[in-house]
């Protein structure tokens, strides 16, 4: 299990044990963490699972695919550390990961 901390826009923290192999998005949705909608269920088709990855974890969460990059390009409030959480696979190496959620996914 990897412990992932999701921090809502209002500061509410959710520390969740997520099974390796799931995505960071699935870890949130399956535990009913508010603020990650994931309309498309992980098909990289909607950009409603936008998160900000804590600076310390940017290297470990890997690179964005061209598809993810171009979806994020048009999402709202995008920052250099923005990611689509459906594209980050959880592994033991991500134990301790911290992600923050934007004010809105739309």
């Amino acid at each position, binding site marked *: 299990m990897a412990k992932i901390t999701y921090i809502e826009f209002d500061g509410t923290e959710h520390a969740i044990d997520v099974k390796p192999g799931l995505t960071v998005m*699935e870890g949130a949705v*399956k535990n*009913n963490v*508010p603020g990650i909608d994931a*309309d498309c269920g992980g098909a990289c*088709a909607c950009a409603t699972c936008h998160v900000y990855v804590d600076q310390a974890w940017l290297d470990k969460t890997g690179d964005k695919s061209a*598809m993810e990059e171009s*979806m994020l390009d*048009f999402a709202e409030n995008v920052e250099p550390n923005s990611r689509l959480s459906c594209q980050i696979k959880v592994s033991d190496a991500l134990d301790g990961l911290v992600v923050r959620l934007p004010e809105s996914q*739309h």
Partner: protein
Amino acid sequence: MALSEASLESRVVIVGAGHAGGSAAAFLRQYGHTGPIVLIGEEPLLPYQRPPLSKAWLKGEADAESLALKPDAWYAEAGVSLRLQAVAVEINRGARTVILASGETVSYDFLILATGARARELPIPGADLAGVLALRTAADAEALKGALGPGKRLAVVGGGYVGLEAAASARALGAEATIIERESRVLARVACETLSHFFQDYHGARGVNFVLNANVEAFEGADGHVTGVRMKGGEVIACDAVLVGVGAYPNVELAQDAGLECSGGIVVDLEARTSDPRVFAVGDVTHRPLPTYERQFRLESVPNALEQAKQAAAAIVGRAPPPHEIPWFWSDQYDLKLQIAGLPFDADAQVVRGDVAAAKFAVFHLKGDLIQAVEAVNAPPEFMAGKQLIAKRTPVSLEKLADPTISMKEVAA
């Protein structure tokens, strides 16, 4: 105590444990609702995602656990009481109860109907043969999966999204696939001609056969199992299984019998409220307002189910309604990602942007200089920017839109 005002303690009953019903329960808890929730579903499974059934799941790339909206344990932890394999047979609006086939009576302050849609059947000879399948539920998908594999022949009646996705999955599993369509092109009711021809060519190049302008007369069988699809005129397409994908009907009967207004679905407002203020309806079963297009319409999509689940949950707890959304859809076939935003109502012009032959393009549907809809193939910027332009009702230059050397950001500026 019966509650009629919005409150966090109300008793909520949800009929239908699909994506819409399951999400309504989850959003209620996210919004701080603490009252009892009873979730009633006819299938033996907890709420799960249906879109992967024709795609990743069929190809063995997703399992039951990944399909589930929430893990089994979540329902008990969240205090959501389950009635699975349970059929609601009557709503008594006066007594505010739902009566189940088992005889159990469940009381509500607020009721959410999420009864979904069922696959349309073809009323032709042989429709009851084994191997004549639909694709709506996990059980349907299991049956279809069993019929696919190297050398197996799948006939698909209906060239809609379900049929095309299943054909693509069948090819990936080494099966033969023939799509039999009544109209002169696939996706006739749901996409423009450019897209229809593109998808037909793409499937054709990957070994899918097409029979268009087809008039299916009967399914032929031997020993109770389907062996072919017979056309008017006598031609028979031999197969080992048939997938019938010719649309769906909304399951309105429960609402209709209870006297709720129904017309092409259960009629709801932008709070997902029916003609009874204590009764909401969400998902595929509803006929809902589309403010951007100034009309009521029935949508079959996950984004619609989620949007309405949020609307109903927000109204029940007295929270501000969620923002309006532009309807959108997606489909994955082979290496193609199709994303559609909006609906082409009242459109008077089309602009094709990008290279159809290179499988990277978008078709914009315009009413004057306003984008009504965009169909994007492997073109996320066109989809994302298009969706925003539709929502904001921003006029665009058709010339700029047609020129792929001008970025979508510049078109939108």
